[in-house]
């Protein structure tokens, strides 16, 4: 029998990871819960003054999204590393970057996409300008995959370390900063009624750049970590 085609292998691994996520629902809810809790804490801490909250809403939402993404990063490869399935993945006849992309896609569907669904509710709570809702969703849609993709490189580099948590944050956070700057700025501009095409173009560029390059880097980093 011939081995699966590349796209079949991609979908197979994607489905497997989604199934595993479904069977560990508590882990699945973790980043989402964190995202919601952090954002609800802000009005309590800085006071419920509508103008102030509306002003800082883009920043709050994006910083929370960034931290929520960081929180869940380790899960991309951790369990596979520990039970040896990652080893088997590297020994597969399929190109490793494609398998990596499948895993990162599954991770984003499980941790990034839910943020997209609750973000409008939280934006409403913070009193964000209504004109900015669409742009908020668009930045999350474009930005969170970038976070997962960049994060996967960091996780792959630190997976072999026993206490890689701090190094992972130091490695990954600086690379997250451009996404944070451009997305918060886009939402700000949209709330002020300005054009956001420049910011969105930049974010799209980030997405395509990381989509094409990060799986290759992650695969190479995994090979290094496993040896």
């Amino acid at each position, binding site marked *: 029998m*011939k081995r699966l085609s590349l796209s079949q*292998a991609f979908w197979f691994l994607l489905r497997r990871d989604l199934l595993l996520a479904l069977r560990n629902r508590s882990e699945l809810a973790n980043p989402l819960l964190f995202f919601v809790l952090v954002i609800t804490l802000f009005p309590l801490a800085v006071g419920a003054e509508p103008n102030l909250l509306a002003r800082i809403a883009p920043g709050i939402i994006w910083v929370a999204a960034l931290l929520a993404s960081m929180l869940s990063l380790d899960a991309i490869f951790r369990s596979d590393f520990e039970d040896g399935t990652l080893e*088997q993945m590297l*020994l*597969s006849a*399929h190109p490793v970057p494609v398998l990596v992309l499948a895993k990162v896609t599954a991770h984003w569907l499980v941790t990034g996409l839910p943020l997209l669904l609750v973000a409008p509710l939280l934006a409403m709570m913070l009193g964000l300008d209504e004109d900015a809702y669409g742009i908020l969703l668009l930045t999350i849609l474009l930005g969170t995959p970038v976070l997962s993709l960049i994060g996967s490189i960091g996780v792959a580099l630190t997976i072999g370390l026993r206490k890689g948590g701090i190094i992972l944050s130091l490695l990954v956070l600086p690379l997250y900063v451009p996404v944070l700057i451009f997305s918060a700025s886009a939402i700000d501009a949209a709330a002020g009624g300005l054009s956001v095409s420049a910011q969105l173009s930049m974010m799209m560029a980030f997405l395509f750049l990381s989509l094409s390059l990060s799986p290759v880097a992650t695969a190479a980093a995994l090979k290094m970590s496993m040896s």
Partner: protein
Amino acid sequence: MSALLQTSDLTCVKDDRVLFENLNLSLSEGQILLVEGKNGSGKTSLLRILTGLNLPESGEVLWQGQPISEVGPEYYEQVNYVGHHDGIKRDLTCLENLRLVQAMGKPMPIDLDDALDKVNLYRFGDNFVATLSAGQKRRLALARLVVTEAKLWIMDEPFTSLDKASMAMFQEMFEKHLANGGVIVMTSHHDIEMKNSDVVRLNLSE
């Protein structure tokens, strides 16, 4: 007969200790290499170098005369590696695990229930791996040998936590594989008796 798997001047250094130096091996169809040696003598390292997971300090591993780094996917299609870790997911059922194994390699045209039967796990197909015993998990890990078509089996202590009956069963399976022109490289602390096969022994402690 031409050699399938060869190593040329393989040297492995770990933490400034030389584990083995200038190792030259040659295995052809139907041969089994038993790697022996004390703990920490480099058995696992050698096996991982043969799979390409680790890189040697110097030297090369050749598959049909070509370095494995150049052969790429065609080599990985021919290799089945069973390491220290079972490489199966706790939260999947036995059947789901086997399907995953098949998806990652070159599937053997075999009914998966029959495959489970071959490793004495019939009726466990829909059980989650988390509920299996250590020996059952090991047998499921070894089931990858049955469900994929690979010529070279590389196994690190395949008999860990297996009972005597299972050990005999797998030895029989190994002999069959060798008789069909396969090649096996394995480490084991158990006494292996394969009278009908061409056994090559390598002791890394000497």
